[in-house]
């Protein structure tokens, strides 16, 4: 089976976030970039499915030439080849979905695997939009994926429990954290990745207009945490939870 999987480049979630002086966004100067952790789960799942059923894993990333680093990480983990959609500037979730829809038309994968959301803007939209554009079945927030011939059985994490879906392939699945534990890119993997093909395309060559429909107009940091209070007794604690915190 052929699987298309995404590898979004974003700042390392471990980094301390600093805003630009004009609050127009996050200051990216000197920041380390990684593959979106949920996309890493998606890549891992794609590789496991390939190891079980054979086939090919194609790693896609959209953005400036630097995003090829994230594609290479996917290839070093075991992906077969990459597609870099070279695009500058803000690309909103809808544009991402329309770009991926075009790539799906060309590549004709049996399955598209994506992270359930990117941990930078937490939109959680691109996967769902893509399935809509393609008219495919979708299963988001997957914690288990099994493929049987022309169907996929997906367990998804919903509020208060698990839901199991059966999907007709081709389909779209987005990965949750508990789906698997992503492997390390091994040294042999990294050395082999150098020789793997990464094709470059552009939104224009795909015929996709990426003019944003949604624009970020400003960001703010959450208010600093105020100091805690020490209480003398349980009674006082209950009292304060009622009157000050208003949680009881």
């Amino acid at each position, binding site marked *: 089976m052929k699987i298309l999987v995404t590898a979004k480049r974003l700042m390392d979630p471990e980094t301390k976030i600093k805003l630009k002086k004009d609050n127009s966004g996050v200051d990216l100067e000197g920041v380390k970039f990684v593959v979106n952790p949920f996309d890493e789960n998606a890549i891992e799942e794609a590789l496991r499915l390939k190891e079980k059923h054979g086939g090919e894993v194609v790693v896609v990333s959209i953005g400036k030439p630097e995003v*090829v*680093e994230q594609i*290479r*990480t996917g290839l*070093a983990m075991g992906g077969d080849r990459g597609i870099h959609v070279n695009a500058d500037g803000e690309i909103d979730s809808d544009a991402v979905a329309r770009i991926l829809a075009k790539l799906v038309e060309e590549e004709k994968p049996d399955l598209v695997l994506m992270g359930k959301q990117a941990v930078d803007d937490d939109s959680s939209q691109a996967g769902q939009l893509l399935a809509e554009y393609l008219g495919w079945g979708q299963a988001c927030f997957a914690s288990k994926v099994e493929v049987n011939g022309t169907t996929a059985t997906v367990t998804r994490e919903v509020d208060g429990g698990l839901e199991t879906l059966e999907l007709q392939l081709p389909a779209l699945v987005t990965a949750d954290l508990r789906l698997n534990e992503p492997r*390390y*890119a*091994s*040294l*042999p993997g*990294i*050395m082999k*990745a*150098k020789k793997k093909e990464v094709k470059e395309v552009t939104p224009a060559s795909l015929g996709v207009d990426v003019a944003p429909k949604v624009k970020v107009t400003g960001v703010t940091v959450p208010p600093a945490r105020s100091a805690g209070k020490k209480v003398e007794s349980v009674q006082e604690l209950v009292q304060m939870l009622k009157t000050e915190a208003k949680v009881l």
Partner: protein
Amino acid sequence: MTTATHASNPIGFSLTDEQKQLQETARKFAAEVIRPVAPHHDRTEEFPEKVLRKAHELGLINLIIPEQYGGLGLSAVDGVVMTEEAAWGCAGMATSIMANDLALSPIVLDASEEQKEEWLPKFTKEYRLASFCLSEPGAGSDVAGMTTTARRDGDYYILNGAKQWITNATYADQFTVFATLDKSQRHKALAAFIVPRDTPGITVGKPEDKMGQRASNTAPVIFEDVKVPVRNRIGEEGQGFMIAMRTLDKSRPMVAALCVGLARAAMEYAMDYANERKQFNQPIANFQAIQFLIANMAMKTEASRLLTWQAAWALDAGIRSTLYSSYAKSFAADTCMEVTTDAVQVYGGYGYTKEYPVEKLMRDAKLMQIYEGTAQVQRMVIARELLSKR
């Protein structure tokens, strides 16, 4: 990959994309696999076999094996970049991870084609350890004063003697042993041999109870009438000293990288603690007394890294690296001793206790000024190299 970068840009400090990935993999491994278990292995001196097996699986062991013998064909720059990361996790484990490279270097550098085919690929195929047996109870810095003898007997050599401070010896599957064919001829009479562990007559003694780097295994190895086939000799009779020195030229930048990783770990701990610890109603990082300590740590760690990269670059460029290797090893070792000592100082009384991580780093650091050529031997090498050219 590195040579190409440097050819087009004679002085460059940037890493290639692949090198960044190698660094990232080593960094993740150090943070997620090595560091969490480092205190346990320091306390118990239990050998970190699980970590080493995982490191082998990822390809972090046997960095120097060339591609045609099943290795990855990495450059020395690749090696120092990754070794710094491993040592950041735990210097003791990094020493054990590196030990195969030290033992296999004589084979990579000076063995015949047949010997390379026979002895190298098995190390990348399966988890195996090898130990470098050079030092002796009475021959440390004075390598040529060794008393382990090799006597030719038909198609064999008969080895007799004792080796000391042998890294990973208890768990090694294979030894690279240096011995003398004639004690009176000193360095002119040394030869190097590949000796499988299961050869009769080999005894590995009790592991040392060390001050630091307690995760790494260090033990004496005794050879009693050990029969080694002539075809296991690396190079010619009398080339042993040269082979040992070439190996050390190659390994010293890696040891220097280990020092850099250790110093970086201590510096990071000291900075975080200085920001957190309050005295006189403010973080101690506000005081110049602490700031100057931190600034010195950072300057010297950075300088150590540059010397280390330079030495690795010289190796990759095929330039005689003896001087660069010794600059890097001695400066980085002295630096990591100083930085770890100052890190304990920043922590004050807490730093002196085992509740906090920096006293371990200080104990680990001391070894760096001793093994693979003491701080003093490095200076002898440096002075000799420089003075002989005037």
